[in-house]
């Protein structure tokens, strides 16, 4: 006897009985939510016949398989690529930009194709780029870092000097606060790359900032801010409060095991875990310890948030918890009713991700997903949940709760408080509408906004 739930599943996947089986389901023990069906894995012991039951009735392939050309000749030899590159078949997996966003490629942004990434690490070549004065091409031998201001002993370091310090390696997400900015006023774009690609997650290696500040004898009784500055054309600066600087910041020289890329601040950058990427000053050349903030353009004109009543929030640091379903997402198309493993990313600027829940009915009911990656502090966390799609219209959303107890809000709620002129920190949920299988655009996945 096969488990009758499995039988039902077989039925739901055979074309001719889709509607009947749906009724069977509704009567049966499976949970039904918004036309979405969930079955629990059978608890009985493994039975090979039962395991393959879903294939019953499927047409078998009988055509003999042919060898591919690569079976008939040798492949390329070692060192053809002293620095390896992806297969040419992966050529579509690229950083992309929207030309209309900025008038100039030296003050612009590219987005990471997160719909094509797996796990929690972004390859260095796909790390998003955000430039304010182009990517500098710095000779590390001539690069220096100075620590001065409210310190006992202003000091200067070479990059090699920094590598002599005790090192730490941490995996952290880095997110531009404008991630999702184009979606404040409604839906613009049908790709996760556009809605969430202004972020990446890599492993950084470097020196604790608290060590460097103490090496120079930081005067903790007077110091309240540090002002890091870049050596590039933008001379990027932000004011970082001492509580954050002394917490878990570090000066990184490596990213995913190799030197930083120029796009990410080679030879050294500041890492400010959980905070706006704009604070992670690249090409770091100077840290001034002060008792007052700088009021740099990037913390006054930009990276402040206009509220609906005309007031503005300033000194925004933390990136709020956020999540997105990367598969299925608008970059894909459903392949018919049946089983899908819905996956995505969740992250929080305030610590670890605690729960991710997924809704298939626009937020009415939620189902807890499980994690398929390590759950790390201020890092991407990969979630997954099983979904039996019955072919009816569905509205997919993911919602993160982090270890602080904060629950990601839906868009109408965030809009009610923050308005739509905010530009930054649009961290409410997004919704993917899955078109009903038997509709005109059956299986299409569309970015819609409530």
């Amino acid at each position, binding site marked *: 006897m096969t488990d009758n739930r499995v039988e039902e599943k077989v039925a739901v996947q055979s074309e001719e009985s889709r509607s009947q089986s749906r009724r069977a389901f509704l009567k049966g023990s499976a949970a039904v939510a918004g036309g979405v069906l969930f079955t629990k894995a059978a608890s009985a012991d493994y039975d090979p016949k039962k395991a393959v039951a879903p294939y019953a009735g499927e047409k078998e392939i009988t055509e003999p398989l042919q060898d591919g050309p690569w079976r008939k000749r040798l492949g390329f030899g070692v060192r053809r690529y002293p620095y390896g590159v992806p297969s040419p078949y992966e050529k579509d997996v690229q950083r992309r930009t929207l030309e209309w966003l900025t008038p100039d490629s030296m003050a612009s942004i590219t987005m990471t194709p997160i719909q094509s990434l797996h796990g929690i690490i972004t390859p260095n070549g796909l790390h998003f780029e955000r430039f304010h004065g182009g990517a500098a091409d710095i000779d590390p031998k001539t690069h220096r870092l100075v620590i001065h201001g409210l310190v006992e002993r202003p000091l200067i370091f070479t990059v090699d000097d920094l590598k002599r310090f005790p090192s730490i390696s941490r995996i952290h997400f880095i997110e531009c606060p404008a991630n999702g900015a184009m979606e404040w006023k409604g839906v613009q774009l049908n790709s996760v790359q556009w809605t969430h690609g202004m972020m990446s997650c890599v492993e950084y290696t470097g020196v604790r900032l608290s060590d460097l500040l103490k090496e120079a004898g930081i005067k903790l009784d007077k110091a309240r801010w540090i002002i890091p500055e870049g050596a590039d054309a933008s001379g990027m600066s932000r004011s970082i409060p001492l509580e954050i600087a002394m917490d878990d910041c570090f000066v990184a020289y490596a990213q995913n095991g190799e030197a930083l890329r120029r796009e990410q601040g080679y030879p050294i950058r500041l890492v400010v875990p959980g905070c706006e990427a704009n604070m992670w000053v690249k090409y770091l050349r100077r840290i001034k310890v002060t008792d007052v903030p700088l009021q740099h353009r990037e913390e006054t004109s930009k990276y402040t948030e206009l509220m609906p009543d005309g007031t503005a929030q300033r000194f925004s640091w933390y990136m709020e918890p956020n999540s997105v379903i990367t598969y299925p997402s608008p970059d894909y198309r459903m392949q018919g009713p049946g089983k899908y493993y819905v996956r995505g990313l969740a992250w929080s600027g305030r610590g670890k991700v605690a729960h991710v829940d997924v809704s298939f009915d626009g937020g009415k009911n939620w189902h807890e997903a499980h994690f398929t990656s390590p759950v790390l502090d201020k890092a991407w966390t990969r979630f997954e949940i099983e979904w039996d799609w019955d072919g009816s219209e569905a509205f997919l959303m993911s919602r993160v709760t982090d*270890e602080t107890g904060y629950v990601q809000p839906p868009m109408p709620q*965030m809009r009610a408080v923050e308005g739509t002129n905010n530009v930054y920190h649009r961290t409410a949920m997004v919704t993917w509408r899955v078109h009903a299988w038997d509709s005109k655009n059956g299986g299409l996945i569309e970015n819609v906004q409530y």
Partner: protein
Amino acid sequence: MFSTKKSLIAAAVVASMAAGSALAMSSNDKGGDTAAAAGKIEGKWAANYREIIKENGGKYLDREVMEKILGSDVNSLRAKLDPNNPYSFEVDDSIDGGPHGNAQCKVPKAFVEVWDSAEKNEKADYIANKFGKPIAESALKIWEINVDGDGNGWPNVSEEEAVTVEKGGNIYVQFCGMCHGEFGEGAKGYLPLAVDEDLVTSDFRDPAPMKTIGNYWPYATTIFDYSRRAMPFWSPNSPAIGDKGYLGITAYLIQANGIPLDDEDTTLDDSDKATAQVIMAANKYMKNQGNFFCDHRPVTHNKRCMKDCPDYLVGDGAGNIHHYRQARRLPDGTPQYNVNQRLHEAPPGVGHAGF
């Protein structure tokens, strides 16, 4: 001194939050994220908030934990503007611009308690590794380009050496106008620097207002600091302009934005000298400076609802999941995908199925 409107802002934002919530939330909301109590100030926060947070596993942004500490003020921005509130980002001296005028914000006490690592890192003894080399502040003469909101860091340019505002305007036209417009109106898609748009829009779909020096920037010092640091775009901190020239440009932009220098609304004349003093005068009268307040996110404090969630959390915020907006459509009615995507091939799960 600083014309702060902070208490007004607080009231206004509270009102707008309540109104916004009414829009977004249905009336049958119980125990969810309601701003109904937002106007109320209890003024008494649980003094033992540290213990409360600890007892609850460090969940300092959990709705119930926050209610234990703040009572019904969980959502109240007005409450968060009180620096004594453990959830406030405000620093006392920023309330009135402070003794030095340069607004400060801090990490809320409730946030800091759970990561004691900063405190540990501060307290732990440290003996230098001697990996660096001592350097004199004077060796940073060229690198040290910060001019902060208090006016620390002005270059030495005397009244006699200073250029006139008119000369500053000429320099601006020569080095900046081609991108930002002769009068700061913007050009070729580059940012305008003097557009006096209203910062409030009537419909939430309207284009976001342009935020420029006159209508948005809180400090005049930023004009100088940023222009010298990063402009002209292709040749920042240009010796061809020099400190005198950057002061001149800054004064010109203050004039172009109509920023007053005193209570009598005096503005800069073409013949006035572009000195640091003039810019510090304008620094106190930036039109929008009183409208900034410290980031008070998160702005929502929901409970984690799993089943039959209340309408305000569902779909359009009124429980309707079919009431949504879409991206632009193609003429045949299909959704527009902005890049060439492999819509009709490559099933998900086969290959990378990007686009």
